[in-house]
């Protein structure tokens, strides 16, 4: 029988890298933009059936929002909630701009090959997701609109998009409470609208721990009547044996 060393785990993912992990319901994931200017691309899948995945349009229209911040829940295409944003010092995260690509990075900052630059090569978000997705049998057809944590993109009245290069400040953090078992893919590649003169290689600190139980007056669950129904859909899923037992 193994002995649990700790109930928490902390690491730092350097800028321009990628990672993935499966998180149990009841897990707290905290992302911190330690240096300022970070972007964390993230996708979410149900590990029991990866055809169920994060759906940005459903997430936005269910909560009548264009941005993501505290109080919002991230929905799957099946009407369930992968995670809730229980704390956020940033105030605005993007989910409509997708990823940087190899061509974009080469045109904007010049390609830095692995052969010449080793760990300082310039990876891109799209290919980072393909690598992590492939580890679970997923591919091009399984990618969808992702979240870009710490990146603010607003739209003017005429629909014009604006990337706020001053938005991601050092020390900003966002706390995600997972409401069902979730496969998380993530990368720390630049936001595709970031036009910094140098390839923005910004690290993100990751803290994994146990979330507080969801109380009846939970802010996210009660922030909109839609979210009460989203939590009810999760309850039905768990009632019928979906996922592992929630961490407590």
């Amino acid at each position, binding site marked *: 029988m193994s002995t649990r060393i700790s109930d928490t785990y902390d690491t730092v993912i350097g800028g321009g890298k990628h990672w993935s992990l499966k998180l149990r319901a009841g897990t707290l994931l905290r992302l911190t933009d330690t240096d300022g200017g970070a972007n964390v691309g993230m996708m979410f899948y149900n590990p029991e059936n990866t055809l169920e995945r994060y759906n940005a349009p459903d997430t936005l229209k269910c909560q009548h929002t264009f*941005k993501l911040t505290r109080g919002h829940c991230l929905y799957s295409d099946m009407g369930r909630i992968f995670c809730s944003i229980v704390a956020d010092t940033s105030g605005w995260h993007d989910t409509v701009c997708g990823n940087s690509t190899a061509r974009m990075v080469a045109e904007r900052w010049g390609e830095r090959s692995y052969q010449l630059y080793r760990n300082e090569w310039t990876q891109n978000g799209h290919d980072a997701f393909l690598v992590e997705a492939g580890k679970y049998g997923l591919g091009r057809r399984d990618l969808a609109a992702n979240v870009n944590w710490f990146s603010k993109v607003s739209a003017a009245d005429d629909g014009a998009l604006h990337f706020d290069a001053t938005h991601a400040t050092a020390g900003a953090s966002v706390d995600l409470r997972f409401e069902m078992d979730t496969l998380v893919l993530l990368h720390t590649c630049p936001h595709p609208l970031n036009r910094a003169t140098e390839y923005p290689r910004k690290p993100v600190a990751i803290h994994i721990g146990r979330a507080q139980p969801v109380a009846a007056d939970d802010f996210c669950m009660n922030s909109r009547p839609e979210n009460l129904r989203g939590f009810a859909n999760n309850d039905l899923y768990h009632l019928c044996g979906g996922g592992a037992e929630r961490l407590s």
Partner: protein
Amino acid sequence: MKRASDLHPGEAVFRYVIRAGDYWIDTLRAGQRLRIVDVEGNQAADTLFFNAADVADRYSAVDTIREQGNVYLSTGSKLLSTSGKVLLEIVADTVGRHDTLGGACASESNTVRYDLEKRTMHACRDSYLLAVGQHDTLGLGKRDLTHNINFFMNVPVTPDGGLTFADGLSGPGEYVEMRAAMNVIVLISNCPQLNNPCNAYNPTPLEVLIWDADVL
């Protein structure tokens, strides 16, 4: 930007009325023009496109809006694939603004948006699933049913980050027309939504017309 088309319906090589709640799936050849007509007004045409030579390379809402720098689609919008290729370009539009953020309705999202007991009501994603199931030789499945265009829907984004569902800008007989830049599979769900005031709770027919490149 509004722009009328100079094509005549009498010269179309294909005309088809999609009944409310039905789907239509077909292949457009490079150079052909597709017009979608909002026959009775404020009806949503939930539309997906796939590169016919590589269906995993499909319409991408996020790449399309990011590269054009605007969340709305209209005349001049290049509809991009996930690999950045131009699938089609909108060449005429009598409405002026179309949505690609709101996605397609699903019985599951209906439970969240409206009521848990709406779970058996007809929805676009059921039409999509039926379409790819009945045409499984195309090699499409649920993982290919990605974020779509909602032609004729008006979903304004506010500068402070809100999303609103406004009365439609469309009306009876308004249309949008696009030119295929390559061979593309087009899949349209004529939205059956009965819970949303966008279509006055009244789904109505759409008509599609296709012109060959040599009549242009």
